[in-house]
């Protein structure tokens, strides 16, 4: 200690330099109710200043007992539950589920139904990608991009409403085909909407992609290496952003994807920018696919002609005993799914949407398990964010596009 009268020496002494300030990391709860955690997830963070030291994502706030609910209803009655999985792209979930059941039953559906499924799934893929790209803009403070993207999604929602009667909970498609054919004039409406959606997507692209501030925020943040991504079980755009060219539509084509001419964009950076930009490119590819599918779509029935699977026509129900019996058995007992188990995957907007189904032949599922793509992505979030800044978490959480509904089921 300096005494009064001593000469003041401004150089700090040796142990003064050595002494460390007592600091403690700050623990902070991001969510469950936070502007950036869309889908109600809680991220427990340990912060050193603004740097994330430790991170613990906690899910379960949207748990609805999806799997157990499915076990108590017939196979057809599961379809509305699948709407609530990926609520941004519910058609992909509807069609994914019924395609898996059809594989278990060994049913081949009419050609036209396959085309309708491609069109519906691709429409909702565009909707999901637009939402992701727009919300990324919103969370980085660029509100305009979000509104243009949502404007485009609204057009898709309108078309889906014409198709299914609902904006969000589509419940479209049945085991063995589709429950309804396309409404008259719907294809023209879709083609008209696609032109506008292209414009909106270009607007979002123009507002964000080459913006220097945006590029600084998303390039090199939320990086995950190719090996890590494979280890965590990534799929979809997030895996392709790491340089792995894996797309269920190309690798194991289902419906009519093998007849369509489309490309699978791949990037190598594995950062937020790659994940964002792949989605922009996939919107273009999806638009291409829908145009081709509408062009190539044949006429004909949309449902298999088998009264054990498809509901008989109403006049048959009212006038013939066979119709009444078939109708009664189908409604009361459900579609007769044979004993067995199956795994079938489709490419949803966020990656491989896998279904592991087990049937004991009772007409109700014995077990329905969903491999939701978002779960694996969310589990890798700490790996992508720890050691980075809090502000980087926001775009990373957005570009993995975790959907609470499917992750928490």
């Amino acid at each position: 200690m300096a005494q009064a009268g001593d000469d003041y020496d401004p150089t700090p002494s040796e142990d003064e330099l050595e002494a460390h300030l007592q600091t403690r990391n700050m623990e902070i709860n991001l969510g469950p109710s936070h502007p950036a955690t869309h889908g109600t997830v809680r991220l427990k963070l340990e912060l050193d200043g603004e740097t994330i030291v430790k991170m613990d994502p906690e899910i379960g706030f949207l748990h609805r007992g999806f799997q157990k609910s499915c076990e108590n209803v017939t196979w057809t009655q599961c379809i509305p539950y699948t709407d609530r999985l990926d609520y941004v792209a519910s058609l992909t979930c509807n069609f994914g589920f019924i395609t898996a059941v059809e594989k278990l039953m060994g049913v081949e559906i009419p050609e036209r139904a396959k085309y309708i499924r491609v069109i519906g799934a691709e429409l909702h893929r565009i909707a999901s990608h637009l939402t992701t790209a727009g919300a990324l803009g919103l969370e980085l403070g660029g509100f305009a991009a979000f509104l243009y993207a949502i404007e485009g999604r609204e057009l898709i929602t309108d078309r889906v409403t014409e198709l299914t009667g609902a904006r969000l909970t589509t419940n479209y498609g049945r085991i063995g085909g589709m429950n309804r054919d396309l409404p008259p004039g719907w294809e023209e409406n879709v083609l008209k909407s696609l032109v506008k959606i292209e414009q909106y997507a270009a607007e979002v692209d123009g507002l964000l992609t080459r913006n220097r501030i945006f590029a600084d925020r998303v390039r090199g943040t939320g990086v995950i290496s190719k090996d890590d991504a494979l280890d965590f079980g990534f799929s979809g755009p997030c895996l392709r952003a790491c340089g792995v060219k894996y797309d269920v539509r190309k690798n194991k084509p289902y419906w009519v994807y093998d007849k369509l001419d489309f490309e699978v964009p791949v990037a190598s950076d594995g950062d937020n920018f790659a994940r964002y930009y792949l989605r922009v490119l996939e919107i273009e590819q999806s638009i291409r696919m829908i145009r081709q599918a509408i062009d190539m779509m044949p006429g004909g029935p949309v449902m298999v002609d088998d009264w054990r699977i498809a509901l008989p026509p109403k006049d048959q129900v009212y006038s013939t005993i066979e119709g009444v019996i078939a109708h009664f058995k189908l409604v009361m007992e459900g579609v007769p799914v044979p004993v067995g188990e199956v795994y079938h995957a489709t490419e949803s907007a966020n990656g491989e949407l896998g279904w592991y189904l087990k049937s004991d032949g009772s007409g109700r599922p014995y077990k329905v398990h969903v491999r939701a793509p978002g779960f694996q992505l969310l589990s890798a979030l700490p790996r992508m964010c720890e050691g980075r800044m809090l502000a980087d978490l926001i775009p990373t959480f957005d570009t993995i596009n975790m959907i609470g509904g499917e992750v928490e089921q």
Partner: protein
Amino acid sequence: MRALNVSIGIAVIIGSLFGHMTVTYLAAGWLENLLQEHGLKGGGFIVNILSLMLAVVMIIATLLTIAERKWSALMQDRIGPNRARLSILPVLGKMPLAGIPHILTDVFKMLTKEAFRPAGANAFLFKLAPMLAFAPVFALFAIVPAGPTLTLWGKPIIMAPANPDFGLLFMFAIASLAVYGTSLAGWSSNNKFALLGGVRASSQMISYEVALGLSLVGMMMAFSTVRLAGDTGMAALQEKLLWSTKVGGLEIGVPQWGFFLQPLGFLLFFAAAFAETKRAPFDTPEGESEIVGYFIEYSGMQFGMFMISEFVEVVVLSGVLVAIFFGGSSIPFVSTESVLALLPTGGDWPNHTTALAGGFFGMVFWVKVVLLCYLQLVIRWTFPRFRYDQIQTLGWQILLPIGLANVFVSGALILWDPSLRWLTLFGFAELAVIAFLTVTPNRQKRREAEAAEHDHGGHGHGGGHGADDHAADAHGGHNPVPALDAH
């Protein structure tokens, strides 16, 4: 019909500014005269404080709250707020009135909400913070002249709330006080998000003070003054024309506006001052999708103080920019003196004629302010937000070195040619370079266009992403668009 409505709206705004400024000149002249008869000085300044700061600045800031929502709606293909009605009025009560009644509803909402204070918050500092955030911002306008200095009843009337010798230094001093409001708000709320916001705000605002000060040094050297108002202030000196020609009694030419002398200084000052206002793209202290903001715990009018201080900041910043860089109250490219010389001298009401001229120039000033407010809102609604450390990088590693270089180059040019002509020519060259850089596409975009030409001639949209030679750029760092292989 819509064009008519818009024209009427613009005419009402401009007309009321004109009228208000004329009345201000008259009242200032009258009070100055009255007080001087009793041996007191500064009567004009009292009128100016009431008229410019309390009336014009506050009203423009209040209208900006609705203008921000309407203008952002225009940019985003929306309609914007139009539901509130003044139903007590007979005819107007049925009209949306461009959403202006929403101002009233907002004010009533804020005034009637509970001023909640979280447990554990420091009561004194918690209440002090909104005031500290608002007061310095408001006080900044004190040195900005909103019109030329005119002689009424034989007394020179300076159209600014105050005219101290230390002009711009007052501005720097007061601007640096604003950080206390935000950092105290963050710290005293007893909330971790607010604390993060407060820390971000204080580091951001402190680091931008340096660039802010440095960017104006060029202007101070060019005019050898730090004073803004008065005959020897920066605003008046900018009215001088460097090259001019006579067109029917009017002198038209290139004025020595700060924007022409110091385009770089303008950009630096604008960026630094924008960062001080804490609005997007510099809104990390708020960062509503990250940390929700330093004012997360505030409600009611305490929150309203933070919000309105942002809008006041927009108006004040525009006013400062106009006074320093855009020739104050002068008409662009026209000499103010030559306009004033056209006025009829003598007559029955000489003072009233002068006041009308003052009102006209005051109107010009406020129109410039409103245009700059619009520019600020356009920037706020188009750009995403910086990251906290990127803001620091921009401030210390880009703005500061450019600011220093600008000071040296401008200083040399001023020494070489005190008439400022070479400085202006150099400024034009800078503007040309900036314009060239803005309109030419960046390297990545050019390469994409080339790739699109020889790779996929036919396929328009998908073009450019398929080029394999892009792969080399994938780790290139600064190209905003990564290489993507679409096989």
